């Protein structure tokens, strides 16, 4: 932040926060945290130019600023709209916003295969979370869902185009992290797809990061494919001396076995920053080749956002933070349902590390 940047007051769902001029509504909301924060499927604060596309973060600006208090005529994308001093924003307190968001979720789902049971992203999928909070149980779409020709992106990255929501994050990642982008968005409209055009594997030391930025199961880790469910794994912070990247990662273990390596993600699902302010992107070698515990210095278990189903199995008496949601909405958010109320999997007294082989639902039956 430049010296002397003025601070602007912005009020979101009744909560006021002061942020430097130039901050977006979404970033201001993240500063407040909790349910006043609009969901974001395409915006990624570490990727320049991202955002504005998915329309899930639309909010209502009920007062433009102290200087010009007129409301904005349309809902705006909070990820790309900067705050003004005295601005008032409605997120979950706006019926218009909730209706538009329900619409966006429906649009994102009409052509989504809903193959969560076989999708490696299940459990850490932003589209699942979004649908859970804003979607409907049934669909009004009565047509065949969109399919694409299958393309291979090489030995490391699995592409499922049918699951893609065209957030463009992976394109920005390739543009900003690698020197030669090999994949992009081809075709247009409802036939647009992520592809390389000519069959080719993505080759760059940092291209594996597209897996971490993908909000859905469109780009997943082939070395982890169908190996396990993320909620059966225990995330551990670990590091190694890596000549290519920061070497600071999350290992997804069961017992001593490393199933998967990812970058470390914050509560918004974005890769964390290092103390020096740089983003902790990791290289392909750390991600795909170092699958032995002995490759790593284990730091300890990683705290998992309660937002995630993954946390349900690991933190028995997790302290649920006070949220603004019940205050403003008069009910608990559905996402805070205790998983154990609806599923017998991952009961708190089961130590899944002790189960032999891949976990099976029978393992949880007495």
């Amino acid at each position: 932040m430049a010296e002397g940047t003025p601070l602007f007051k912005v009020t979101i769902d009744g909560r006021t926060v002061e942020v430097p001029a130039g901050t977006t509504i979404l970033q201001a909301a993240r500063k407040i945290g909790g349910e006043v924060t609009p969901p974001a499927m395409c915006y990624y604060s570490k990727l320049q130019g991202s955002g504005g596309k998915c329309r899930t973060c639309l909010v209502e600006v009920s007062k433009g600023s102290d200087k010009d208090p007129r409301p904005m005529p349309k809902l705006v994308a909070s990820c790309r709209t900067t705050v003004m001093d005295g601005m008032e924003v409605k997120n979950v307190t706006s019926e218009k916003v909730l209706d538009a968001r329900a619409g966006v979720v429906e649009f994102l789902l009409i052509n989504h295969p809903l193959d969560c049971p076989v999708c490696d992203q299940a459990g850490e999928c932003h589209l699942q979370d979004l649908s859970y909070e804003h979607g409907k149980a049934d669909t009004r779409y009565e047509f065949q869902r969109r399919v694409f020709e299958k393309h291979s992106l090489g030995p490391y990255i699995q592409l499922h185009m049918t699951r893609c929501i065209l957030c463009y994050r992976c394109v920005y990642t390739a543009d900003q992290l690698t020197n030669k982008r090999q994949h992009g968005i081809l075709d247009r409209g409802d036939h647009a797809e992520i592809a390389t055009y000519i069959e080719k594997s993505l080759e760059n030391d940092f291209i594996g990061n597209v897996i971490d930025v993908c909000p859905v199961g469109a780009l997943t880790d082939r070395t982890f494919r169908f190996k396990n469910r993320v909620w059966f794994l225990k995330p551990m912070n670990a590091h190694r001396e890596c000549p290519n990247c920061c070497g600071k990662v999350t290992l997804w273990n069961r017992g001593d076995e490393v199933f998967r390596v990812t970058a470390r993600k914050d509560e918004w699902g974005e890769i964390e920053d290092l103390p020096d302010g740089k983003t902790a992107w990791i290289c392909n070698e750390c991600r795909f080749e170092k699958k032995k515990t002995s490759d790593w210095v284990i730091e300890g278990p990683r705290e998992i956002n309660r937002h995630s189903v993954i946390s349900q199995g690991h933190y028995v008496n997790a302290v649920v933070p006070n949220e603004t949601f019940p205050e403003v909405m008069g009910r608990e958010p559905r996402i805070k349902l205790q998983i154990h109320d609806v599923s017998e999997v991952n009961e708190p007294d089961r130590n899944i590390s002790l189960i032999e082989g891949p976990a099976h639902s029978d393992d949880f039956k007495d």
Partner: protein
Amino acid sequence: MTFSPDKLNKVQEIIARYPEERQKSALLPVLHLAQEEFGGWLSVEAMDYVASLLQLEPIEVYEVATFYSMYNLKPVGKYVFEVCQTGPCMLRGSDDIIAYIQQKLGINVGETTPDGLFTLKVVECLGACGYAPMMQLGKFYREHLTKEKIDAIIEECIQNAAINN
């Protein structure tokens, strides 16, 4: 695969219209040139050539070529009938014209005749609504179409092909 010296000069002339380092702006016009030069469509080879001319990554060219509807990514016939089917043309009978061409040429929309002479495409509004029904044939529009006009156009194409061969 390379352009003729004439075309290469044209490429340089186009690049000179933009500020320095902004030669990517020449991509659409140069793809048009490539399509003209290399048989009416853009092969991967042709696109890679354009990428090298403009110092772009090949994917940047693929992204653009697949976005715009005028670039053919598969071989097409010598004469491509692009018949407009949007509202205003529909009001003036474009559906009948399309059906007639299909019957006359014995092909469906999107297909090419076995002799490689004709391809039939349907397109969205070409901005000739007052002269409907209409189609694009090469560089020009053919307007106020009737069955008789279609017959004459097909005949004209066959004649031209015979002369040029």
